[in-house]
């Protein structure tokens, strides 16, 4: 039986070592958003020796492009986007100290290896549940690449964001394990 674990950012090696694929996580604290175009710029900046828009050490990045905040709200709908599109960039951020990625869908071998080597985890949010996830987000502020619109990098304050551990630091993969359990024939 999987467990529910409460985590607060920034995350330590010990935090991620305590997680196993299949665990449920309630995540609180500061996290950052970034998706396709933002990742391209962040990694290009790092390659050029410039500082990324946030300190990757102990950080959590959420692959999301939220819908615009209606009046009186801090953010619009905010569910995860498909993660494999960030696979080209993720190992660079993991090497720089990133501890967790939040998205949906499977990751490639290079990202899985980097997670095991540098102690990071991949957490799945329920794809499409954008209205429900917006309730966990208490504050949002664009901190870089405003011109990218929904793809800008935002700093979010989240409270008890419900997530599933997909890839742990031990090679576990909930997508493979879950599917194997219910595959027929």
């Amino acid at each position, binding site marked *: 039986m999987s467990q529910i674990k409460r985590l607060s950012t920034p995350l330590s090696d010990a935090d991620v070592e305590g997680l196993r694929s299949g665990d449920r996580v309630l995540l609180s604290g500061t996290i950052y958003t970034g998706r396709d175009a933002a990742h391209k710029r962040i990694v290009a900046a790092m390659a050029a020796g410039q500082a990324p828009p946030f300190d990757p050490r102990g950080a959590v990045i959420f692959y999301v492009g939220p819908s615009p905040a209606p009046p009186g709200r801090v953010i619009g709908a905010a569910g995860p986007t498909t993660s494999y599109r960030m696979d080209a960039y993720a190992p660079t951020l993991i090497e720089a100290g990133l501890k967790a990625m939040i998205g949906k869908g499977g990751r490639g071998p290079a990202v899985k290896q980097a997670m095991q080597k540098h102690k990071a985890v991949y957490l799945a949010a329920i*794809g*499409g549940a954008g209205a*429900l996830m917006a309730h966990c987000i208490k504050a949002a502020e664009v901190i870089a690449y405003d011109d990218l619109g929904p793809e800008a990098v935002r700093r979010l304050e989240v409270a008890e964001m419900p997530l599933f551990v997909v890839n742990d630091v031990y090679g576990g993969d909930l997508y493979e394990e879950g*599917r194997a359990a219910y595959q027929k024939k």
Partner: protein
Amino acid sequence: MSDLRVIDVGQISRELARLCGEAGLILPDDVSRAFASAMQSEPSPVGREVLQVLIDNARLAAEERLPICQDCGLAVVFVDVGQDVHLVGGDLAEAVNAGVRQGYQEHYLRKSVCHPFSRANTGDNTPCVVHTRIVPGDKVRLSLLPKGGGSENMSRVLLLTPAQGLEGVKKAVLEAVLHAGPNPCPPIILGVAVGGTFDDAAVRAKRVFLRHLGSQNPDPEAAALEAELLAMVNDTGIGPAGLGGGTTCLGVFVDIAPCHIASLPVAINVQCHAARHKEAVL
């Protein structure tokens, strides 16, 4: 000529703007019913938990006027224009784009359209994709399908050889679903068009999403294939959100058309569970 009905394209813009908001915020009834039905049959506790999240999400979106999903889609618009209609007041395609532009702005929907290389966002979710047909009658039917990128990316068009036949089509669908895995936000809905040409199959594989979940194809051959593909895909175990289970797919819509003697085109359009589709008739 005296029987022509005059419709101002401004009406089309206004109606589409309204449909954009309705589609973005309100999950269609057929999808809600499919979620409820899947809750009864889903064997995985985690799968049922995911389905409950999707049911709660749809309720919250409607109550709080938030989009069901942050990916409010690229608007695909099917316009069936009656041949006894005279459109006035401007360019039809521009009127459709104007409606989408207005709808996405007014209802705080995400603008997800960009240049393919620079990735610069156009800022207003246009241009949208418009498919226009001339049909009998004096009405204009507008059908809006806002399509998310995650599921669209898992779609395929294949040109099989005639020798690959029906078995080849089934294999192609299974391969597409296995390759997609958890990426397109399962439980998915599949549009499968067989026959026609390369371009025609792709459009038909999308147009089938105007059908309602639970409806059966009137063609018995297509209906049988729908049932077989649905069972096959649900046996993969991918499950809700890809976390394992028996509900990988809520429905398969098949469309079969004649093709060239040398060809066997197959288009597989993958639709996520946020299966937004709205229609209006003017």
